[in-house]
């Protein structure tokens, strides 16, 4: 059905003054896009979104200020020019990209969990879910709209904060007196950087779907946020420790299984996916150095398949609950 008006045209203020009702297109995609716009409109008018965005930007700025502070200390000390150059290179591209994405990913997983947990759980907590579900679109469309809104927020957040991080790094770099060089810059590097940012967005989206699933299951903001954070910061680390102890104390197939379980955890696969992009961005030597902070011998294909599996699981379960649950609150 195409867009159009309904009604007969009564005087304004009259209950049937409906010639001004202008309906939009009612095909699946148009409805979905309108609902996504609606979700973004709600987010835009919510103080929480501004607070989370500000926290994200400030964290990156603070990280670069800290690096600058260290570089200034080195400059004032008897450190060699080489030491100053080493520490201050984190302020300049391409390494400022690494710093930005590291901060963004570390903090971003918490921020996106809060955002999506509140976005989904809040509908149940406040009771607006029944307002939405009685308006016409299918339940699944509301769920997809929330995911599309989350993707939009992640994309805008990652791109904006990355740009802010790189610009802040360049500005603060003036303190060191070392001019930035852009000899690393090439079409291939740009491709890798794009892939790096897309990988970051993808990882954050997986965490968003985790919050989406738990908030839908728990029917509250608190459940969505707490559940997802417990998964990320408690459950997975505990599983890693348990597996590592089991692998150490057992033998044979049990030890093999215990050793391989962490390869299927969210955090390990995300870290591996991001680490796998380092070589193309920062060169083999630096990539090897960065790998010291966390070595994940997982291929891109493995990580993508595992993360896609989690995505299907989280979205599928949220979809099922959303579709078949009785709305009784």
């Amino acid at each position, binding site marked *: 059905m195409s*867009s159009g008006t*309904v*009604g007969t045209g009564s005087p*304004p*203020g*009259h*209950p*049937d*003054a*409906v010639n*001004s*009702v*202008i*309906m*939009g297109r*009612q095909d699946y995609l148009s*409805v979905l896009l*309108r*609902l996504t*716009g*609606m979700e973004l*409109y*709600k987010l835009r*008018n*919510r*103080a929480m979104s501004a607070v989370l965005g500000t926290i994200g930007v400030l964290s990156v700025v603070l990280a670069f200020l800290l690096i600058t502070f260290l570089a200034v200390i080195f400059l004032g000390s008897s450190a060699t020019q080489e030491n100053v150059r080493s520490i201050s290179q984190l302020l300049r591209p391409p390494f400022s990209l690494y710093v930005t994405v590291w901060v963004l990913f570390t903090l971003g997983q918490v921020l996106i969990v809060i955002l999506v947990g509140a976005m989904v759980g809040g509908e149940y907590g*406040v*009771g*607006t879910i*029944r*307002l*939405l*579900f*009685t*308006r*016409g*679109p*299918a339940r699944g469309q509301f769920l997809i709209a929330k995911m599309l809104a989350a993707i939009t927020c992640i994309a805008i957040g990652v791109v904006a904060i990355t740009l802010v991080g790189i610009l802040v790094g360049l500005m603060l770099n003036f303190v060191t007196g070392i001019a930035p060089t852009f000899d690393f810059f090439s079409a291939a590097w740009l491709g890798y950087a794009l892939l790096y940012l897309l990988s970051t967005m993808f990882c954050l989206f997986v965490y968003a779907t985790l919050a989406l699933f738990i908030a839908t299951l728990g029917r509250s903001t608190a459940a969505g946020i707490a559940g997802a954070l417990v998964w990320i910061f408690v459950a997975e680390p505990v599983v890693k420790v348990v597996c590592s102890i089991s692998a150490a104390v057992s033998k044979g197939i049990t030890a093999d299984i215990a050793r391989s379980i962490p390869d299927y955890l969210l955090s390990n696969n995300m870290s591996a996916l991001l680490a796998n992009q380092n070589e193309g961005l920062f060169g083999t030597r630096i990539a090897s150095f960065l790998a010291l902070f966390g070595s994940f011998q997982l291929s891109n294909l493995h990580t993508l398949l595992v993360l896609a599996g989690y995505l299907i699981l989280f979205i599928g379960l949220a979809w099922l609950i959303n579709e*078949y649950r*009785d*709305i*009784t609150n």
Partner: protein
Amino acid sequence: MQDIYPQQEDNVIISTSRLTKAFGNLVAVNDLHLQVKRGDVFGFLGPNGSGKTTTIRMLLGLIRPTAGRAILFGMDNTYQLPAILRHIGAIVETPVFYPYLSGVDNLRVIAAASGMLSGGANERRIAEVLEIVELRSQARDAYSKYSLGMKQRLGIAAALLTNPELVLLDEPTNGLDPGGVIEIRQLIRRLSELGKTIFLSSHILHEVQQVCNRVAILQRGNLIKQGDVSELLQRGEQILVRMGMAEETQRAYAILQEAQERGARWMSDIRVETNRQGQPILRIQAPMVRSAEINALLAQSGFFAAELHPYEGSLEEVFLELTTPPTPVGAHPGMAALAGWQASTSDMPGRKGGAL
């Protein structure tokens, strides 16, 4: 047993057949057969916990029936819910909106969710519905600062936003002051005059009696009566008689009982009660047109009524009659049912001894 797919007449907007919802062992709605016709102002009555909201939620697809079907606008809501919902504006229980948005922003969100074009295209319509519910001056205030009455009004504005054919209102006057209740009543009448079908769920019987042409009465999940309000009120027609002297009341009672046994079956129930002044009266369940015959019956036996008063009755009394088991002669009728109803009713007028 009726067919699970109800017969669908052209003018029937809502038709349910054997609609049932159980939450574990609790049967909230049992085997419900409802028919709401186009243009009806349909009152859906019952005390709190009788299954009204559960039924509304099933009609709107918020909860799935355990058994049975609901057909709205000729479509089965199990399979064609989105198409059905486009014709409906609804308030389910206390309206809730996004507390961090203003009233007008909430309506913009609802407009987008309802399939209306966004981006300012429907600003005029939003202004109109705000005008209808008299919220225009507070439209830009945060919803979290709204009083309960204002929230109800915003709920009604949201329900009217798309100019729906069917307006489904669940306890729309909750939290409203008397002036607000009257305004909502007038609004319902205006909407009805415009040909809209109104499904009004309420536990306030006199409110329903004033605006509805048809009602269904629900008790503990069971439909106990459905029909025209005028027909139901005929059931409640009574004649109240006060004798000149109190001691004559028992004698008059015996005379009328005897007449009933002799064949005056139009008197279905005769009771002795006490009026507000503490005087004994006779309450006779009979058509008003029989007042003169009652007077004559008493006069023939040498008793003369000090007052004889036709009493139209009310939905409240119809409800009591329908839900109360037979009581002994002279006992106050329907105390159990009334107690149950009053426990859930704040502004229902208490049952008095008629107008005498």
